[in-house]
C-alpha cells in the first residue's frame, strides 16, 4: 500500500464499522453545544482533522464545503472536529465561508478523538479520520488518512450510498 492510499481504521485504534458511535457534546460556537444524538434519524459524517488553518485541512474543508449539496441528497449532516477552540473555529469557518459546523474537542483536550480511537497523543492533535454513522447511530464506515494527505470525498459518498441503496448514483 503506498503512503498515499491511507489505511482503513488503524488496527486496534480507530473504531471499526459495526461499533455504536460514542455520543458526545461539544461546542460548535462559543455559546452553542452540539450533541451527536441530536442527529439520530439521519446519517452523520464525522470529519476529524488535525488543525484549523493547516494547508491540507484547508483543501479538505474547501472540498467538503463544495459538496454540501451532495451530502444533503443523502440527508447527511457533516461535522468537522479538531482540538482547536471555538473561537479559532469561528475565525477559520468565517475565513473559509464554511457551511458546516466545526466542533471544538478542546476541553478535556481530544476526549472525543480518544473515544473514537483517533487521537495522536504524541502530537497533541487528532488523526485525519472519517466516520460515516447511520441513522441508528452505528458506525458504518471509517477511514484514517495519512495525516498530511487529504482523503477526498469519494469514500464518504460511496459509504453514504451504501446506507441508501435507493439513492441514484451520480
Amino acid at each position, binding site marked *: 500500500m*503506498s503512503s*498515499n*492510499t*491511507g489505511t*482503513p*481504521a488503524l488496527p486496534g485504534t480507530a473504531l*471499526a*464499522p459495526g461499533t455504536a458511535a460514542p455520543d458526545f457534546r461539544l461546542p460548535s460556537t462559543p455559546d452553542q453545544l452540539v450533541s451527536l444524538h441530536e442527529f439520530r434519524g439521519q446519517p452523520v459524517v464525522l470529519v476529524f482533522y488535525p488543525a484549523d488553518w493547516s494547508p491540507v485541512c484547508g*483543501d*479538505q474543508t*474547501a*472540498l467538503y*464545503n*463544495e*459538496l454540501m449539496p*451532495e451530502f444533503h441528497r443523502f440527508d447527511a449532516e457533516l461535522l468537522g472536529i479538531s482540538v482547536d477552540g471555538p473561537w479559532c473555529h469561528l475565525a477559520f469557518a468565517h475565513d*473559509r*465561508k464554511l*457551511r458546516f459546523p466545526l466542533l471544538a474537542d478542546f476541553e478535556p483536550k481530544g476526549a472525543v478523538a480518544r473515544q473514537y480511537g483517533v487521537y495522536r497523543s504524541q502530537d497533541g492533535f487528532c488523526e485525519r479520520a472519517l466516520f460515516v454513522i447511520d441513522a441508528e447511530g452505528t458506525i*458504518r*464506515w*471509517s*477511514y484514517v*488518512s495519512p495525516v498530511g*494527505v*487529504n*482523503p*477526498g*470525498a*469519494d*469514500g464518504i*459518498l*460511496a*459509504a453514504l450510498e*451504501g446506507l441508501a441503496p435507493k439513492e441514484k448514483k*451520480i
Partner: protein
Amino acid sequence: MTTRSSTELTLPVTDRDHIQGSTEALVTLVEYGDYECPHCGRAHPIVEEIRQQFGDRLRFVFRNFPLTQVHAHAEAAAEAAEAAGAQGRFWEMHHALFTHQNALDTSHLVQYAGRLRINAAQFGEALSAHTFRDRVREDFMSGVRSGVNGTPTFFINGMRHDAPFDLPFLSEAIEGVMGSGGDQGRAAGQS
C-alpha cells in the same frame, strides 16, 4: 466497504472531453483544474512543456474542478471555457483564462471571447443562462468520484499522479508509463 480510497479515473476519456493531441497517443494526461487556482496557473506552462516534449505520444485532457466557495470567479470562468468550446475555441479560452487569472470577472471574460472572434451574443447568453453549469458540475463530480482532493490533480493513463506536478516529476511519471507500453497505470490500478 472500509478501505475505499479511489485513485483511478472513474469517467473514461471520450469525445465529451476537450482533448489536445493524437487519438493514437500512448499516454493520456488528464488534469482536473480550476481557472482561478494559482497552483493550476503554475501548472499551465508545465503542461505546455510536457505537450511539446512528448509530441504525438501524449494527449492532454482538461476537466473542470472549480472550488467555487474559495474562488469567486472559478465557476464563471469554467462556464466561459465551455461556452467558447461550444464555438470551437475551448483551448484558446483555456489559455486566456490561465494567463489572466487575476482578471476573470464577466467583463474580462467577454473581452477574451471578443479576441477569439466568436459569436459574442451566443457566448454572453451561455454565461448568463449558465448553459454549461451542469456540464461543469459533471466534470467536478467525476473528479470527486476519482479521488480528486484538490487542484490541480493529474491522472496518467487513468491513475492519479500523487507526486508533485513540477516538470521533472510529471515528465518522469509519463516516461515511466510509456516505458511500460502505456500499461503501467492499468496494472497498478488493479493492485
